[in-house]
């Protein structure tokens, strides 16, 4: 969680030497690689999450990574398996039990989340040897990322992105207007299930870097920012990836130099971007109102 052992490196404003210093540590190189993969995958998945207004489901799936990791450690497996098993399982449960009313769905999601988090707490209580207690799993650590983990991340990320590329067009249609899409023969329900599973896989990935509580930041904030900035799907998707990438790498750099958690830096940088985007939009709205007949500003993609 902290980087106290490396003897407090200092920022010299000479970017080249700074990065050379930072990347002379293999764990930092791995962290940057893993961060890049995670940023791209979660930004793309998160873009659809924001579009589909499934933020709560995304948060629940990401929270579930905690009992997954704790349970796997308790049973003697690597945490990675726990992440993937439980994230995908929770995505399937939410997908399977959907279709009640709006409020039933939210009660259900909330209950699933709280119960699984409580189970995670039980597991950590039973398994005392857990690295630093629940805090590491919840808030993440980037110091122990191995090269083989980076490979696994890349492979899973590539699969998630490939499936998303395949279903991207119909999924976009089904997200924007489910009724019309259904009428045109798009399998809306099946797409929704596939998407939730992808969400589970992407979450399980990202959990290992940012901690289960903060994955969600990488998914939602960059995508929300991008969708505030532009209404054009392709452009905002690219923007979301760029923003997530920037937040992760800047966060890693900051966490290297200051002894505070990576998750804090990543969420703060991403959130600052979001606030700037909101500020820009309201500024343009004010300016647009003073000039009569000005073109409508880019509002959100879907009102």
């Amino acid at each position: 969680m902290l980087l106290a052992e490396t003897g407090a490196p200092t920022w010299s404003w000479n970017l080249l030497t700074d990065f050379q210093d930072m990347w002379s540590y293999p764990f930092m190189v791995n962290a940057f690689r893993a961060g890049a993969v995670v940023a791209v995958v979660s930004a793309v998945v998160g873009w659809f999450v924001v579009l589909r207004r499934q933020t709560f489901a995304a948060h629940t799936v990401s929270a579930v990574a905690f009992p997954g990791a704790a349970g796997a450690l308790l049973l003697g497996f690597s945490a990675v398996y726990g992440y993937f098993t439980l994230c995908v399982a929770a995505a399937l449960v939410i997908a399977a039990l959907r279709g009640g009313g709006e409020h039933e769905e939210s009660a259900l999601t909330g209950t699933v989340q709280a119960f699984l988090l409580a189970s995670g707490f039980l597991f950590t209580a039973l398994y005392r040897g857990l690295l630093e207690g629940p805090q590491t799993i919840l808030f993440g650590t980037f110091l122990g990322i191995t090269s083989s983990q980076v490979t696994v991340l890349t492979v899973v990320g590539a699969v998630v992105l490939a499936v998303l590329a395949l279903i991207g067009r119909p999924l976009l249609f089904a997200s924007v207007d489910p009724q019309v899409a259904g009428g045109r023969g798009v399998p809306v329900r099946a797409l929704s299930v596939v998407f939730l599973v992808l969400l589970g896989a992407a979450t399980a990935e990202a959990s290992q870097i940012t901690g289960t509580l903060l994955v969600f930041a990488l998914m939602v904030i960059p995508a929300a920012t991008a969708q505030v900035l532009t209404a054009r799907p392709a452009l905002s998707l690219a923007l979301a990836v760029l923003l997530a990438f920037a937040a992760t790498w800047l966060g890693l750099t900051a966490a290297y130099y200051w002894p505070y958690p990576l998750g804090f830096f990543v969420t703060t940088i991403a959130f600052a971007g979001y606030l700037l985007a909101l500020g820009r939009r309201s500024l343009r709205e004010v300016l647009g109102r003073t000039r009569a007949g000005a073109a409508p500003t880019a509002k959100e993609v879907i009102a």
Partner: protein
Amino acid sequence: MTVLLATSPLSHPFFLHAFLAGTAIAVACGLVGYFLVLRAQVFTGDALSHVAFTGAMAALAFGADLRLGLFAATVAMALLFGTLGRKARPDDVVIGSVFSWILGLGAFFITLYTTSRSTTNGTAGVSVLFGSIFGIASSSAVVAALVAAGVGLLVVLIARPLLFATLDEAVAAARGVPVRLLGYGFLALAGISAAEATQAVGSLLLLGLLAAPAGAAIRVTDRPYRALALSAGLAVLEMWAGLFTSYAVPKMPPSFAIMAAATAVYAATFLIRRPVPRPRTRTAVPTGT
């Protein structure tokens, strides 16, 4: 640990305190939770519970009382969410963005606290996240019970107009119900009960206490007042079941036992087929009991 010398769990002061505080908290959560579910604001409750964590950690990092941070943060955030959303109903993407940042801030404060201040109380973070109902002191138990009773009373007082405003906002506004004010007031109450419940079940788990009893009650009955009462009653029973189970099985943390009971009851309601597949409560009119 104490199971061997138990005659009755209630003879132990720590259990009595937990029982007292827990019962009051369960009533408040059951009542507030019913409206959260009905207004489809469970996500707001979720966000409030995470904010509670950051508030508590910030208070600890600055050397203030933990409860001060809990209440200040949750109520402030509840009002902020009310302001951000149209008609005091915030958009979920906004909530998501705000509260994931707040959580990151919590991680920051917990580091600040563990590196600078705490030498003795290093597990404060974990007990805020997951609750420590068996560690409640007698004075805090009484305060918790009083606050929770106050919240419960206020919810019952505004139940009628709030139901009206929830089920048919436009008509309620036309009839002169202060919809927006009610929205704010309700969010503030939700914030207070979130702060209160954090001490019992922890900020990560209190969502279960808000969502599960209410979800179960709504599945069992379509009648608003009956469901409201049922939600509170179920929450209390689940709290008791959790406390006694955890007392009997000391390895099981009380928070887990309470969540397990709540989830089991909610899951059981899925086995009940409702007699007539009528349109959902959304179309029902609050006609009293």
